[in-house]
């Protein structure tokens, strides 16, 4: 189900490999993009290397506390 769900949302298309991502993190100066890539790396590690696995684990509600 997860695979079809991700295909539905367009989330399955990876933009770059984990190695490329880590290289970008090294080169980027502090800011939004670097922070995002660091967060994505942490998410992937928690999800056992499956990008998008956390999609259903955070609350998406637009006016809820983000934690």
């Amino acid at each position, binding site marked *: 189900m997860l695979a079809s769900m991700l295909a*539905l949302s367009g989330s399955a298309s990876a933009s770059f490999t984990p190695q490329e991502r880590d290289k970008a993190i090294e080169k980027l100066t502090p*800011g939004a*993009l670097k*922070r995002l890539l660091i967060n994505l790396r942490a998410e992937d590690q928690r999800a056992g290397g499956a990008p998008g696995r956390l999609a259903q684990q955070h609350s*998406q*509600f*637009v*006016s*809820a506390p983000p934690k």
Partner: protein
Amino acid sequence: MSLSSRAANGEGFWFGKGAPQAPVVPFNTFLFKIASRCNLACPYCYVYELRDQSWRAQPQFMQRSTYSAALAKIRAHLAAQGVPITHLIFHGGEPLLVGPQRLEEFATEARKCLSDVTEVRMGLQSNGTLFDERFLDVVLRTGVSVGLSIDGPPAQHDRLRPYRNGRGSSRAVERAARLLEKHPDVFGGLLCVVNLDNDPAEVWEYLCSFHPPGIDLLLPHATHDHLPPGVNAPSEIVRYGEWLVQILDLWYGAGEDRPDIRLFSSIMRLLLGRDSMVESIGNCPASLIVIESNGELEAVDALKACYHGAAYTGLNVFDHDLDQALGKPVVKSRQMGTASLCSTCRRCTFRDTCGAGYQPHRYSSRRGFQNPSVYCHALKMLIRRVALLMQEEFRSIGFPVPRRVQTLARQKLGVGDA
């Protein structure tokens, strides 16, 4: 055909005719309306001031028996569906009107009832006026994170978020934010409704002064029938795009210690082919259900901005299972991704990033939710600007620019193209 018949049927209203059915995604977020009244009178409030007036028939507070019945149904749903992490949000009205003791009872009962079937994360969204040391003790003990609504510096906030007697609420909410600032473990973040009369740079600096972990920027609820505040014609929507882009530029270049803005980071995630963190942008299936004070199950409550009864499912926690709500068109339409969008959005280059924005903002009485967002042009301006910033940064380090970033960065938008 009447509005309620069209809504009940679903096709051509919530989603297009012949749209393929989506796989069902279980609920993981449960929004409890523990209080149905509020001590503020914000002019833009979707609960009291816009099209839906169903709050008048609700009990002031959720009864313990209603709450227990809801938890039992949630437990059954989570156990059957195998949901690893569950979010319970205490909401209103103003949820703190229930008092610290009942809040603690609610939080304690939820942990007791659900912890063996899922990881329970709890939060509440408050106007901050009642939050004091007593509530702080409760949220620290029970692990409930607190989000506060602040619309900007005091003069701006007071104009938009007054008490019922017209007095501003800024002093009280500032006090609450300062209390939470000292307790980052339970500080959920700040919620700010965009107002064109406020200076975006001032709003950004002011919100950052409380050191929240995150900021949610909300576009005021509006539809094609009722345009957003400050907008007299659709072409003026660009003003919202310009406002958002100004904050985006400040946020994007800010240091590591500045708060996240989930709308912006979600757009960045979507541009990289990942999921959105909020339901207001992107095509990810929404997994939220609202439990009204009287136990009725409703779809996302912001739909109340559209028409009376828009969030109605006809189900309640006493007589129905949560799985039944998953079959209702109003809920299903938010899990269908691209298939729920109108033909204009399905053909749009921005589709997979924008997802037609927030569902309530697509509404018109003529075509239901089969429209682009009333904020369409503003969202495109924002997304394109995010793509441009990312493209520039990827290029500066000699990194190949991801395809979606590249495509959207070069889009021409016409009116308001900046």
